[in-house]
């Protein structure tokens, strides 16, 4: 017998099965996350981001290396990124009182108008490890003394079981273009929406599906309890994959006689696969069209907002391949895929967040058979988070 203040469904018993995931409202700490696109940060430029409540300033030195440092001046807590000032290489100066930090060590290097101040070399702010590839600056966010694991443990796996596999984000011949936008909604709801095989109805009438006449089922019925494969690579990525490529695993649903709706489209494309990865990303293989891929990252900002990363990838090394990819991206993948198609997912996430935020959705949702994949993800993700981001505000009422 359970009494609840907000009962709609009753998932309290199920939610025990993945307790740490339910606790991760601010996101998992001690993981690598995409911070900014490379092109956003020029030499001595500063771009501010927030990951799991950590305000971080990303900058670039004269050698081209990217650095990440706390975006809160220790003096009065203002954001350094509000008015970027880098007067010397590998430093960042607060625009307010001139506190100047070494971006590599975080050491208080000088104070512009108080060069003999006792605090100089006696105070520091924290820094964050960075990496840069695939046109993205990546940041490791979490405890400052955490033993930083290799970044590939926090990326979608490298696909090796298919010919013409989509490039891994660390592959040298990757072509990658994308956007990022701050959205309302918890990072978990965003990740689950991306993976969810049950949400195809949202995309039934989307422009890209109609334009390509792509066969889009109404749903994917799992035929085996391991239709969603749990992937646990030793010292590597942890994720779950909907194996749509194995015909014994799923039965597509094209019609439902109880309601007057039928699946649209006649063109069967190369089977695509969708997989979700710790700490919160998605890999969609052979999408929007065969041999292309889409990566998505759902980076927690706070408990009710995430940064939505949408990246289209392809392989190429020549200038001609790069130009052709850029053209298709600008005039096809971005407007029809990243914007029109994904905007339907965004609508769904924002609608879900309202229930989960205000009515304790994690304990009151009503799951169905079609949620098998999402539940598999939750259990898997419960196992591999390396820590929790903390609510950082002194007063949040």
């Amino acid at each position, binding site marked *: 017998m359970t009494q609840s203040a907000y009962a709609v469904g009753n998932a309290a018993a199920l939610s025990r099965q993945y307790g740490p995931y339910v*606790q991760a409202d601010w996101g998992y700490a001690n993981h690598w996350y995409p911070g900014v696109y490379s092109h956003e940060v020029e030499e001595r430029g500063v771009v501010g981001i927030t990951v799991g409540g950590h305000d971080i300033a990303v900058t670039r030195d004269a050698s081209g290396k990217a650095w990440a440092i706390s975006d809160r001046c220790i003096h009065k807590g203002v954001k350094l990124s509000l008015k970027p000032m880098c007067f010397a290489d590998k430093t960042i100066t607060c625009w307010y009182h001139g506190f100047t930090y070494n971006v590599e060590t975080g050491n208080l290097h000088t104070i512009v108008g108080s060069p003999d101040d006792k605090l100089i070399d006696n105070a520091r702010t924290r820094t964050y490890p960075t990496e840069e590839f695939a046109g993205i600056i990546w940041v490791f966010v979490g405890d400052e003394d955490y033993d930083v694991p290799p970044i590939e443990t926090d990326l979608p796996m490298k696909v090796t079981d298919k010919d013409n596999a989509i490039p891994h984000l660390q592959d040298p011949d990757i072509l990658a273009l994308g956007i990022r936008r701050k959205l309302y909604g918890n990072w978990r709801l965003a990740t689950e929406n991306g993976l969810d095989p049950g949400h195809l109805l949202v995309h039934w009438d989307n422009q890209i599906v109609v334009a390509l006449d792509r066969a889009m089922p109404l749903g994917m019925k799992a035929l085996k309890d391991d239709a969603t494969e749990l992937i646990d690579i030793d010292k590597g990525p942890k994720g779950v994959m909907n194996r749509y490529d194995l015909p014994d695993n799923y039965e597509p649903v094209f019609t439902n006689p109880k309601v007057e709706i039928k699946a649209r489209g006649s063109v069967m494309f190369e089977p695509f696969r969708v997989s979700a990865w710790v700490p919160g990303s998605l890999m969609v293989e052979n999408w929007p069209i065969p041999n292309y891929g889409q990566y998505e990252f759902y980076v927690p900002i706070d408990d009710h907002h995430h940064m939505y990363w949408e990246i289209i990838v392809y392989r190429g090394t020549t200038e001609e391949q790069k130009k052709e990819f850029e053209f298709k991206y600008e005039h096809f993948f971005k407007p029809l895929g990243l914007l029109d198609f994904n905007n339907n997912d965004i609508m769904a996430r924002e609608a879900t967040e309202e229930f989960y935020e205000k009515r304790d959705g994690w304990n009151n949702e009503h799951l169905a058979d079609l949620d098998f994949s999402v539940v598999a993800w939750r259990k898997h993700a419960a*196992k591999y988070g390396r820590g929790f981001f903390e609510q950082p505000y002194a007063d949040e009422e």
Partner: protein
Amino acid sequence: MTLQMAVDADVGDAAASFTRQVELRFTDGESRTIDVDDGETVLAAAKRAGHKLASQCEVGTCCTCVARLHEGAAEMPAGQVTALTRDEVAGGQRLLCQTRVLSDAAAFGLDYPTSVLTGYPTVLFTAKIQRLTWLSDTVVQLDLKVPKAVRLRFMAGQYCRIKVPGTDAWRSFSMASGEHEHGKLSFLVRVLPSGAMSDYLRDKARAGATLEMEGPVGGFVLESSSRPHVLIAGGTGVAPMLSMLDKIRLVRPTPPVLLIFGCVRQAELFLQDELEARQSFMPTLTVRVALVEPGDAHGVVEGNPVEVLRAEDVLPDSIAYLCGPPGMISAAEARLIGLGVAPSDVRAEQFLPS
């Protein structure tokens, strides 16, 4: 270290230095006495003695370590700009990171309680019942929602006091929820045929009701360590173990953990699903459920939680946490120490029915 020992240790030093005895007085009436060496700041001496006083910049700028001189003489370096005005210094205020003691003995007043030295302050607050879940015929899980304005932080293993509504009785319950479950506290309560809290939970408690609370309290806390852990719990004594598991799971490298959970009979057993789930998301966890009267229950061993502890469960560097009724605690302590666990590595919290 006593004053005498400190002086003895310094005898061989050519420039015989002084050691001064300094008392630190806290707002909860507690005090700590430390030895301050010649030329040493009070803050540095306190740190050396293992007391983490409030401090930040340690160069005399931020004022976090301010204290008031009650007895004796102590000065800060002259000619240095600090965050204290001349009048404030004359009035007895000192920054401990800069302060050296001149008299043989001195006393300082700090403006916070000793709980700050070890953990989080105890606060009075109200919380709402979010959910009541009967886990067995006699055990109820109480989930509470804490308002965001309440700055409640606790360490796994600690407890809260809850006032029984409509009475003047307070009862203590260990948190079963983890340190990181923002705004949520969970407790496991054994409901007896009679008793103030039992009567309330059985007959009156409803989701949405408000409870007066005080917490966190208690020195039964988990220390983060990668040494092998043995957790032994009787009945609802499993509550603090759940909170501790949430924390141990994130220690790297994650230590092996054996949780022995004992109940009398199957009808009183609870949380089996939860413990099974925890083994799935915490691969280093082994759970052994012990029933004194196993009947035809599956997946359990016969006996009380101490009897089912085997010699091979314990390694020389094991650390043990115990929570349950007094008899279980004393038996478990004797058994663990007999198996070679250092007495200081056996931590226990006992409870009585209420």
